[in-house]
């Protein structure tokens, strides 16, 4: 059992005022039997209206917005979350969906061969694919975008945690393993992180292909889905000609 203090802050600034700004946020730790939120607090700008809810994949969401013109949007989510290291999520909902390619996790024949060769190598296929993805990729920010597909990552062989996670997710599914894309916090200071969960027949196990390790100790999950499109931490839309700048900072510290 470990407990973590998290502080997740996002500052969105607009180069000129915008109106009808609608948002949907995933900024609170998941509650799933593995993680327990002991204490939490979300700070929003006063003039924003928000409703709590759950999305299709049972992730916690906060959604709403502001109609009047404004030029900044800042929110902070902090709290304490306890993580049980001996229990696992065993939710079987949507298993068929997590076995099929999605918009950002499509495959081609080359990827299929790659995935099948990992499967026939013997041993734990997910672990092998995690290592293979880690070895073939070069961590390189700004070489990809939030909508880069797994097929393109496979040929580019570089990207950020989202791309690593998409590639591993796509390859696992091609090898016949149900897999889902996960985002959340990792111990230390930085940005939000992304990794993968695979279903071993009974429960979901976390793998982090960006670091080539299991995603367990030091990881706090926010949300999951078929791919990043299903569970962005922040999605917004507004009317106006402004350029939007987003700054995210996350601190996760073991207590």
């Amino acid at each position, binding site marked *: 059992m470990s407990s973590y203090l998290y502080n997740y802050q996002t500052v969105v600034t607009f180069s000129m005022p915008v109106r*009808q700004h*609608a*948002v*949907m946020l995933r900024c609170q730790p998941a509650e799933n039997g593995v993680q327990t939120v002991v204490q939490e607090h979300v700070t929003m700008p006063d003039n924003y*209206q928000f*409703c709590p*809810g759950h*999305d*299709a*994949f049972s992730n916690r969401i906060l*959604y*709403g*917005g502001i*109609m009047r013109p404004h030029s900044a949007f800042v929110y902070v989510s902090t709290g304490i979350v306890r993580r049980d290291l001996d229990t696992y999520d065993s939710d079987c909902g*949507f298993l*068929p*969906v997590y076995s*099929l390619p999605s918009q950002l996790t499509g495959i081609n024949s080359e990827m299929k061969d790659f995935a099948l060769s990992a499967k026939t190598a013997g041993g734990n296929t997910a672990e092998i694919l995690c290592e293979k993805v880690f070895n073939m990729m070069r961590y390189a920010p700004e070489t990809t975008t939030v909508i880069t597909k797994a097929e393109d990552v496979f040929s580019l062989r570089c990207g950020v945690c989202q791309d690593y996670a998409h590639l591993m997710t796509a390859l696992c599914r091609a090898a016949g393993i149900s897999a889902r894309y996960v985002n959340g916090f990792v111990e230390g200071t930085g940005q939000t992180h992304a990794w993968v969960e695979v279903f071993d027949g009974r429960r979901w196990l976390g793998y982090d292909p960006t670091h080539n390790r299991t995603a367990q100790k030091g990881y706090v999950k926010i949300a999951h889905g*078929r791919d990043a*499109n299903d569970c*962005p931490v922040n*999605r917004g*839309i507004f*009317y106006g000609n402004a350029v939007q700048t987003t700054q995210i900072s996350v601190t996760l510290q073991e207590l």
Partner: protein
Amino acid sequence: MDTRLNELTDRRETVNKWLERYGVRFGIYKNNVFKEQLFPFDPVPRIITKTDWEYLEQGLRQRVTALNKFLWDIYHDKNIIRDSVVPEEFVYASKGYMPECEGVDPKGGVYAHISGIDLVEGKNGQWYVLEDNLRIPSGASYPMIAREITRKVSPKTFADNAVAENRGYADLLRQMMTDMTVGNGIAVILTPGRYNSAYFEHSYLAEKTGAVLAYPGELIVENNVVYYTGIENKLNRVGCIYRRVSDEYLDPMVFEASSLLGIPNVMQAYKAGNVALINALGNGVADDKGIYYFVPKMVEYYLHEKPVLQNAPTYLPYFKEDYDYILANINNLVIKDVSEAGGYGVVFGRDLSEDKIKELKNLIISEPRRWIAQEVIDFKDLEILEDGQLIERKADLRAFVVSGNETKVWKSGLTRFSRNPASFVVNSSQGGGFKDTWVMLE
């Protein structure tokens, strides 16, 4: 005979001139360029006898009832999958399946409020369903306005013939929207705007039903409630949205993030039961060309009745027996790509060169789930007027079924014909024409 033909030719000119004046157009994107074209009207009506209509009406109500039950089942208990009537992958691999709709309860269990069922009549007098359109079927406005104009041009026609009134479509829509409306809100028709191929229809139906025609940006969500802001920026509660924007563009917070046509967070208001969406979200899973094969089975499964209407004989390469049949008989079949609509992705084996056949076979072998094959039906041709002569052309019929508290069939429909004598594809996106459909009262 000649005087009659002359009269018909005159009538055609007059009606088409009026249609043009009213701006009855059909927009088409060809090579990414938007082009509006007139949807040519032919003055020779399709006549459906009372007996035929009673048969069609019964079959259409049965089919749409089963489809609505299927949609409820897919997004709730999934009994039809558990009982192995429909294979799991046909549901989950369908582009139209939306996990976001799981557990959402549309009022009265109605998903397909407006269904456009495409039928053809065979030379043997047998009707076949070619396609179910349960998302945003368009086309009802064309026969409505054509009849309206014809009535003015030639009032005698409808005095001399016992034709069922077709003005009732607006009443059917209005009643259904009233049935579905939540919380005393107003009814709106959401249009993507004037560059949509069916913009004429959106504005026409708004006028005829008394619903407000709303444009993107005029509908907002606050605390899970939808408001219309188009009148002096005041908030008017919306209870029912007949949306002519497709699922993937309807809520940029949940679906296509770049969509400017949608209503941010409308999905949450819908899930909370605070607004009705006409049609419901997620219907694409039931009008998928692959699922079509299973519709007669749905009728038996949910209603314990024999299907009244037949599908065109269809084969799924997914099943081994069908797969072998298709590869052996591809030259005589029509092959359809399940992911395409609007008459695209449809090829006739007999039109293909040997190389193309080989190519198509390889596609079917590598992705069997993506294709269906059908026998080519020998349609009964309908007469159309061209250059002062009556000639025969292929035609289909889109029947409109409206489901609110009750399921009713509109006593008319859109009859489309292909102007090209060699073409079997009559979709309006492919540049055909239309004619009035007379349902006879006696």
